[in-house]
C-alpha cells in the first residue's frame, strides 16, 4: 500500500508552491478583492503558460495528458494561495465535462482552445437557492436565468444544466459571447472571485454529447475532490498564519500561543485539517483509479473539507483577536474563500445528503 503522491507529483506541487508564493501573494488577491476586476488576468496568463489548464486534457487535443493526481496537487496550492483566477470553473468543471462527455467534434473544437487559455469555461447550474433545475431547452434554444454562476462573467463558454423537451436533465454548451446572453456580476461574500447571473433569452445551445443527470453527478463528484484539495490548502494556510501570529504576539508577559485556550483551539484545527486531507487523498485515489466507491469518497472528501475550512477560517480569525477583524489582516480573505468554496458545486445540504445516501447504499 502506498498512500502518498509520487515524487514527480510532489515535484509539481513544490514548483506550484514556489510559483504561487511569488506571483500570487495576498496583495495580488487583494488586487481583485478591492477592485471591479473579476479575476487577475496576468496571473491567469502565467498559469496558462505553465500548462496547468492543459494538464488533464489528452495530448491529441493539445493537452499534457496527465492525470487527476497532478491536478490535485495543483488544486491544493491554488487553494493555499487564494488564487483569484477561474481555474476551478474552467478546468475542473467546463474542461472536464467536455473531455468526458463531449462529442468528437466538441472535443476537437473546444479542448485545444481551453488548453491554450484562449477560452475560459464555467458551469451554469444553480438557479437561485436550492438544487432544482427547471430551465428548459426547446429547439436548441435556452431561456431563463442561472445564478450564481461562479466566474460566469469572465467565462467565454458555459456548460449548462437544463431540461430537454421530455423534461430530462441534460448538459449543454453555450457560447456566452453570443446574442441572447446577458451577464451581470453579483455582489458576493468573496469578491476575489466572481459570481454572475446569466440570463438566457432564446440563446443557442448544443447538447454536450448525450450527457444527462448521471454524467452531471459524476462531473460534480470529480470537482468535489479537486475543490476539497483547494479547501485543504486554504485551511492549512489559514492555520499556519494563525500559528505564526500567536507565537509572536505577547499578552500577560508570554506568547499567546502558550495559553491552553489557544493551543486546544489549534489542535482542533489541526485535527479537522488532517481528517479533511486524509479524506481528500482517498478521494484523489478513487478519482484517479475510477474506483467503485468514488461517489461516496468524493462526497466524504467534500463534506470533510467544507467543515474543516469553515472551522479553521473562523477560529483563525478568532485567534488573531481584534486585529483579525480588521480589513488589513488577511483572516477575512480565508473566511470569505471558505464560504465561496463550500458553496461551489453545492453546499453541505447536498453533499451530506449524498454521503448518507451513498453510504446506506453501499454493501
Amino acid at each position, binding site marked *: *500500500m502506498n498512500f*502518498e503522491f509520487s515524487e514527480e507529483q510532489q515535484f509539481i506541487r513544490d514548483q506550484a508552491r514556489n510559483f504561487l508564493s511569488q506571483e500570487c501573494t495576498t496583495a495580488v488577491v487583494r488586487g481583485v478583492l478591492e477592485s471591479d476586476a473579476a479575476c487577475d488576468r496576468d496571473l491567469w496568463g502565467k498559469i496558462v503558460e505553465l500548462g496547468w489548464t492543459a494538464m488533464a486534457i489528452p495530448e491529441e487535443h493539445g493537452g499534457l495528458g496527465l492525470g487527476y493526481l497532478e491536478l490535485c496537487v495543483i488544486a491544493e496550492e491554488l487553494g493555499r494561495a487564494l488564487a483569484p483566477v477561474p481555474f476551478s470553473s474552467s478546468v475542473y468543471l467546463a474542461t472536464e465535462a467536455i473531455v468526458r462527455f463531449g462529442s468528437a467534434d466538441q472535443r476537437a473544437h473546444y479542448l485545444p482552445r481551453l488548453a491554450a487559455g484562449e477560452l475560459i469555461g464555467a458551469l451554469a447550474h444553480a438557479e437561485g437557492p436550492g438544487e432544482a433545475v427547471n430551465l428548459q431547452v426547446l429547439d436548441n434554444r435556452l431561456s431563463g436565468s442561472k445564478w450564481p454562476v461562479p466566474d460566469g462573467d469572465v467565462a467565454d463558454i458555459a456548460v449548462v444544466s437544463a431540461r430537454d423537451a421530455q423534461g430530462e436533465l441534460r448538459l449543454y454548451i453555450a457560447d456566452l459571447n453570443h446574442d441572447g446572453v446577458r451577464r451581470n456580476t453579483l455582489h458576493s461574500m468573496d469578491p476575489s472571485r466572481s459570481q454572475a447571473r446569466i440570463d438566457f433569452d432564446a440563446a443557442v445551445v448544443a447538447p454536450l454529447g448525450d450527457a444527462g443527470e448521471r454524467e452531471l453527478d459524476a462531473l460534480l463528484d470529480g470537482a468535489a475532490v479537486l475543490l476539497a484539495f483547494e479547501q485543504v490548502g486554504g485551511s492549512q494556510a489559514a492555520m499556519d498564519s494563525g500559528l505564526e501570529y500567536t507565537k509572536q504576539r505577547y499578552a500577560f508577559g508570554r506568547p499567546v500561543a502558550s495559553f491552553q485556550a489557544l493551543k486546544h483551539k489549534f489542535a482542533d484545527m489541526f485535527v479537522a485539517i488532517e481528517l479533511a486531507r486524509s479524506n481528500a487523498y*482517498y478521494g484523489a485515489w478513487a478519482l484517479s483509479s475510477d474506483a467503485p466507491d468514488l461517489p461516496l469518497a468524493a462526497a*466524504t472528501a467534500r463534506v470533510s473539507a467544507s467543515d474543516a475550512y469553515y472551522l479553521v477560517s473562523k477560529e483563525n480569525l478568532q485567534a488573531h483577536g481584534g486585529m483579525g477583524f480588521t480589513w488589513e489582516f488577511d483572516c477575512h480573505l480565508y473566511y470569505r474563500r471558505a464560504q465561496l468554496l463550500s458553496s461551489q458545486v453545492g453546499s453541505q445540504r447536498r453533499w*451530506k445528503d449524498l454521503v448518507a445516501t451513498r453510504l*446506506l447504499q453501499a454493501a
Partner: protein
Amino acid sequence: MDFEDTPELAEFRREVRAWLDANAERRSDALYMGMEGEQAYREAKQWYLDKARAGFASLTWPKEYGGAGLTALHEVVWTQEVANYRTRDGYFVIGIGNCGPAIMHFADEDARRELLPRMASAEDVWCQLFSEPSAGSDVAGLRTRAERDGDNWIVNGQKIWTSGAQYSDYGVVLTRTDPDVSKYAGLTMFMIDMRQEGVEVRPIKQADGGQHFNEVFFNDAVIPDNYRLGEVGGGWSGALAVLMSERLAISGIQPTGFPQFLGMVRSLQLDGEPVAQDPLVRERLATWYSQYAGLQAANKRMITAVAKGGFAGAEASLGKLVGAVMNQEIANFSCQLFGQAGIVQDEQLSPERAHFQGSVLSSPSVRLAGGTDEVMRNIIAEQVLGMPQEPRADKGMAFKDIPTGPEPG
C-alpha cells in the same frame, strides 16, 4: 498512490484468511466485544496462545522474541482481516503494545529472549503501572518510592487505573528513586513480579458499574536490580516512549461507535419509518462518517509513512482524540433517538442489545484513558504545531519541594 497488495502481501492475506476461517467465527454484526469478566480473559488467553502457535502473534517482533519478523504492512493486513471475526484480538494490547517495546528497548538480551515470547503468546500477562492518585495528567508527579537495598529495590506506594492488574504476572512500573532532584530526573523504570507478597491488587468500581481497572498497592515489594529498565534516573524518557507506543497501539482498536451507529441506522424503524430517512439522522450520519472515514484514511497515510521508514509521531494522538469524542456523541444521540425508551438499558428490549446505553455510561473512560482529550490537544499543539509549553509552577524545583493539594478521594 496504490492500494493493491503486493504479491507477497496478497499471499499473506490468503494465509491469514484461511487460518481465521478454521479458527474463528465470522461476525455479522459490529457489536463491540467487551473486555470485562473472567470468561473474556480466558478466551483471550486461549486466542493469543492459538495465534502464537500458528505464527501470527506480534507480527512485527523479531522471531527470536516470539514474533513473526514481518512488516507493519503485514500487521495492517492482519488487523483488517481479523476485524471480520469474533475474536479477542487486541485484549492484551496494553501489555504487548506498551510493555513489549519497553522490554525490547531497555532489557538485556537474556531477559528479552526469556520474557518476550511468553508475552506474545499471553502465557505471561503484563500490565503497565504509571498513573497514581496524585499524578494524573502530570504523570511525572508520581510518588511511588523505590529505594535501593543491596542488589534489590524496595517499592512502596500506590498505582491506579491499571488495566488487567488482577491477571498480570509482570508489570512495567515507573517509580521515584530520587526526590531531591527535579521531578523528571528522579524517576526510574523497572519490571516487577506481580505475583509477590508486597503487591496487592484491588479492583476499582467504575462510574459505569464495571470493574476493568485496578488500584495496585506496593508494601515493601521487591525488585531485583537486573529488572531495571534503563538507567537510574532515566525513567522519564523511557516512559514517554511507552506512552507513545500506547497511543499508537490503541489508535487502531479503540471504539469510535460508528460501525454500531451505521448498523442501527440501517436496520431500525421508528414509528413505522426507517430512521435512515430522518433528516436529523442523515445529517449526523454524514458528519460522523466523514470523521470516521478520515480516521481510516489518516491511518493509511501513517502506515505509508511507517512503511517508507518514517515513524508515526504525535499525529497518532489524533485518532484517540477524534474516536473518543465521537464515541460519546454517537451514544448520546442514539439514546435521544429512541424517545422515552432511550433510558432503558435492557439487552432484550433496547435496540442493538442496549449497546448505546452501555456506551453512554462507559464512554467517559475512553476520553480519559491513555491520556485525556486535553493532554492529546496539548501534545498536538506542542509537538506537532510547535506551540510553546505553559509556564510551569514546579520548574527547577526539587520534587520534594513541589506544592501539593490534599490527597484525592
